[in-house]
C-alpha cells in the first residue's frame, strides 16, 4: 500500500500521505455495491404490455453510469476530505458564529433579514412568482417556528404536526362555507380549534417517551387526514372545499369589481387594478403572522413556562423533583404549538382558496420537522435558513420535474450527514446562573 503513496508529496505536512491504493479500492467497492443496488431496479425496468401483463426491458447502461458515478463520487469525497480542510474550517466558523448569536451579528442579521423580507415585493427583479415563493417559504417558517415550540423547546417529538395545520385550514373553510366568516374573523377560531386538538392529542401521549410519542403523533396526523378524506358530507372528501374567501384589507376586498356598496382596495386608494396587489398583500399577511409568531415564541421563552419547557427537555426527572408539573408543561407546549399551526393553516386556506386532504400528508409533517431539525433545534434563525433551503430546493429542481422529490430526499440525507446538529447547531439554555460577559443571553 505504501509504495503507491510514496511518490506523492503531500502539500500538508503533519498529515499521513494519501493512500491511493486503499482509497481506490474502497471506491471500487462502493462502485460494486452500487452495481448490485442498481441491477434489479435500474437495470431491469418493468412496463405495461397491455392486457394487465408486464414486460421487462433492460437498461444496463444506466447501471454502468450509476456505478461509475458512485466510484468517482466516493473517490472525490476521499480527496476532498484529505485536501479540502482549510476551506471547510472557514465555513465552520461562519455557521458557528451565526449559531452562537454573537451580539455583533445578531442585530444586523435580523434587521437585514426583515428589511429584505419587507422589500422583496418592491425589488426591481421581483416578480409574482418570487413573491409567491416567498409566501410559501414564510408559511414554512411560521410552521417551523410553531413546531419548534414542541420539538425544539419542549423536546417532544411530533411527527403529526400537519394535523393541526389541517385542522386550522378546515376550521376556516367550514366557518366560511357554512357561516360566512371572513379570514380575519375566522383566524382566532382556527387557532383555538387547533389548540384544543393539540390538548386532546396531548392528554393520551403525556406518559410516552421519544419514539412512542413520534409514532402516536404520526398516527394522529393520519387519523385526521383519513377522517377528512372520508367524512364527505362535511369536509367534501377527496374533492376538498373550494371558494374559500380571500383576505380583505381592513374590509376592502381585492377584486376587479365589487358588489353594490362595497369599495374595493384599488378604488379606495385610487390605484389601477392589478391581480398582483392581492399576491403582495397575502405575502405581507404571512410576513406579519410569521413575525408575530417569532415575537410570541421569543417572549414565551422568557416566561416561566418557556423556562419550564427547556428544563423538561433537558431532564424530566429533575423537573419533577423541582416541583414542575410535567403534565401542564407538556400540554401547554402541545397546545401552543398546535395553535400556531392552526393560524398557519387558516392562512394557507385563504391563500389557496381551495383545500383538500391531499395538502396534509405525512410528507408535510416530515418537511416541517426537517426544517426544525436542519435549522438546529431551538434556533429561530436556523429555521428560516432551513425553510428557505428546503422550499427553494424543490423549486430549483422544477427543471428536472420528476426528480424534484428525489433530490429533496437526497438533500435531507446529505445535509443531515454534513451537519448532524443542524445548520445553526446551538443548544444553550436561555437562562444561565452566571451571565457571560460581552454576550447577551439568547433572545
Amino acid at each position: 500500500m505504501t509504495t503507491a503513496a510514496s511518490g506523492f508529496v503531500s502539500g500538508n505536512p503533519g498529515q499521513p500521505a494519501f493512500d491511493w491504493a486503499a482509497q481506490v479500492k474502497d471506491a471500487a467497492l462502493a462502485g460494486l455495491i452500487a452495481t448490485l443496488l442498481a441491477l434489479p431496479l435500474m437495470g431491469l425496468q418493468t412496463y405495461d404490455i397491455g392486457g394487465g401483463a408486464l414486460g421487462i426491458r433492460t437498461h444496463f447502461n444506466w447501471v454502468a453510469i450509476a456505478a461509475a458515478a458512485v466510484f468517482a463520487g466516493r473517490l472525490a469525497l476521499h480527496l476532498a476530505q484529505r485536501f479540502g480542510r482549510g476551506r471547510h474550517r472557514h465555513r465552520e466558523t461562519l455557521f458557528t458564529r451565526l449559531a452562537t448569536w454573537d451580539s455583533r451579528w445578531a442585530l444586523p442579521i435580523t434587521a437585514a433579514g426583515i428589511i429584505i423580507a419587507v422589500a422583496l415585493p418592491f425589488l426591481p427583479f421581483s416578480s409574482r412568482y418570487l413573491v409567491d415563493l416567498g409566501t410559501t417559504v414564510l408559511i414554512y417558517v411560521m410552521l417551523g417556528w410553531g413546531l419548534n415550540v414542541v420539538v425544539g423547546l419542549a423536546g417532544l417529538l411530533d411527527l403529526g404536526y400537519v394535523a393541526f395545520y389541517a385542522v386550522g385550514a378546515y376550521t376556516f373553510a367550514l366557518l366560511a362555507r357554512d357561516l360566512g366568516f371572513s379570514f380575519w374573523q375566522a383566524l382566532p377560531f382556527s387557532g383555538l380549534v387547533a389548540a384544543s386538538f393539540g390538548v386532546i392529542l396531548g392528554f393520551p401521549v403525556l406518559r410516552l417517551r421519544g419514539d412512542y410519542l413520534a409514532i402516536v403523533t404520526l398516527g394522529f396526523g393520519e387519523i385526521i387526514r383519513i377522517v377528512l378524506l372520508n367524512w364527505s358530507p362535511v369536509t367534501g372528501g377527496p374533492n376538498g372545499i373550494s371558494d374559500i374567501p380571500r383576505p380583505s384589507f381592513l374590509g376592502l376586498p381585492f377584486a376587479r369589481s365589487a358588489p353594490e356598496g362595497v369599495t374595493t382596495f384599488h378604488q379606495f386608494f385610487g390605484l389601477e387594478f392589478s391581480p398582483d396587489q392581492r399576491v403582495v398583500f397575502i405575502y405581507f399577511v404571512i410576513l406579519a403572522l410569521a413575525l408575530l409568531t417569532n415575537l410570541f415564541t421569543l417572549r414565551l421563552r422568557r416566561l416561566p413556562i418557556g423556562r419550564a419547557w427547556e428544563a423538561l427537555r433537558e431532564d424530566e426527572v429533575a423537573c419533577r423533583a423541582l416541583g414542575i408539573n410535567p403534565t401542564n408543561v407538556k400540554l401547554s407546549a402541545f397546545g401552543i404549538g398546535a395553535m400556531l399551526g392552526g393560524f398557519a393553516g387558516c392562512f394557507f386556506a385563504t391563500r389557496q382558496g381551495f383545500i383538500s386532504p391531499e395538502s396534509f400528508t405525512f410528507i408535510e409533517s416530515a418537511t416541517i420537522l426537517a426544517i426544525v431539525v436542519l435549522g438546529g433545534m431551538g434556533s429561530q434563525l436556523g429555521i428560516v435558513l432551513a425553510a428557505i433551503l428546503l422550499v427553494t430546493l424543490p423549486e430549483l429542481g422544477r427543471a428536472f420535474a420528476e426528480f424534484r422529490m428525489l433530490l429533496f430526499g437526497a438533500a435531507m440525507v446529505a445535509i443531515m450527514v454534513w451537519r448532524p446538529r443542524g445548520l445553526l447547531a446551538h443548544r444553550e439554555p436561555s437562562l444561565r446562573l452566571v451571565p457571560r460577559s460581552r454576550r447577551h443571553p439568547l433572545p
Partner: protein
Amino acid sequence: MAYFLQQLINGLTLGSIYGLIAIGYTMVYGIIGMINFAHGEIYMIGAFISIIALLVLGLAGVSYVPLALVLVLLTTMLFTAIYGWMVERVAYRPLRGSHRLAPLISAIGMSIFLQNYVQILQGARGKPVPPLILGGFTVYQSDGFDVRLSYLQLLIMLVTLGLMAGFTTVIATTSLGRAQRACEQDLQMAALLGVDVDRVISTTFVMGAALAAVAGFMVTLYYGVIDFFIGFLAGVKAFTAAVLGGIGSLPGAMLGGILIGLIEAFWSGYFSVEYKDVSVFVVLILVLVLRPTGLLGRPELEKV
C-alpha cells in the same frame, strides 16, 4: 360464525406479513434505539424486486412454480438485503453518536428518496402479477357461505412461522445472535468487550431487510398488484405492530403484527373499510395509554 372465521383467516394472513416487517423495526430499535423510517420502503423495494425476479425467471423459462418461488424468494432477499445495508451505511452510520433526531430525519429523507427512486425507474402505475398459486381448502361451510383458506394464505403463514423459528434460533444460539443481544443491552459495553458494533448493526439491518423482502414478495402474490407507495402505510402499521407488541421484543413484534392484522380484518369486515387505518391507530393509542411499554415489552427504568 362463518364470516367471523373468514375474517380470522384473512387477519392472520395479513398479520403474518405485518409481523415480518415489524421484526425489522423491533430489532433495529432494540439495538440502536431508533426508528428505521426507511424500513417501509425496503419492504416496497422487496416487492418490486420480487416482481422483476418473477419476470426474469419467466423469460428464462423456469415454469415449475415451486422452484420459481424459491428462486424469487432468495434473489429478492439477497438484493433487498443490500438495500437494507445501504440505508444503514448512508443514513445511519455517519450519524452515530449524534443527536437522536438526526438519524430520524436522514432516514425520512432516505425514505422519500427511495420512494421517488422506484417511482421514476419503474413508473407510478400499479404493477399487476398473475396469480401463481391457485386453489385452497374449504374449511367450514354454513348457510351457503364457504370459509376458504387458500393455499397461498397457508403458504404465507407457514413461511412466516418457519422464518420466525429460524430467526429465533439464530438470535438465541449463534455467536452473531449473542453479539446482537449484547449490543441490545449495552452498546458501549459490548464495544469495549470486543464486539464489532458496526458489523452487528449492519447485520441487523440486513436481516430486517431480508425479512421485509419476504413480506414484500408475499404481498405481491397475495394482492396481485403493487405500486411505489405501498411502503409508507405498511411501514407505519408494522411499526405500530412493533410498538404494540413491546418494542425490542421479537415475539412481541410477531404478536403485535398478528393483532394489527386481525384488528384491520375485523374492522373492515364488520364496520367500515374506509376507517380501517384509523382503527389501527386508535388501538395503538389505547394500548400505549394503558400499557406504555407494549404487550411484551420490559418497562424501562428511568435513571438519573
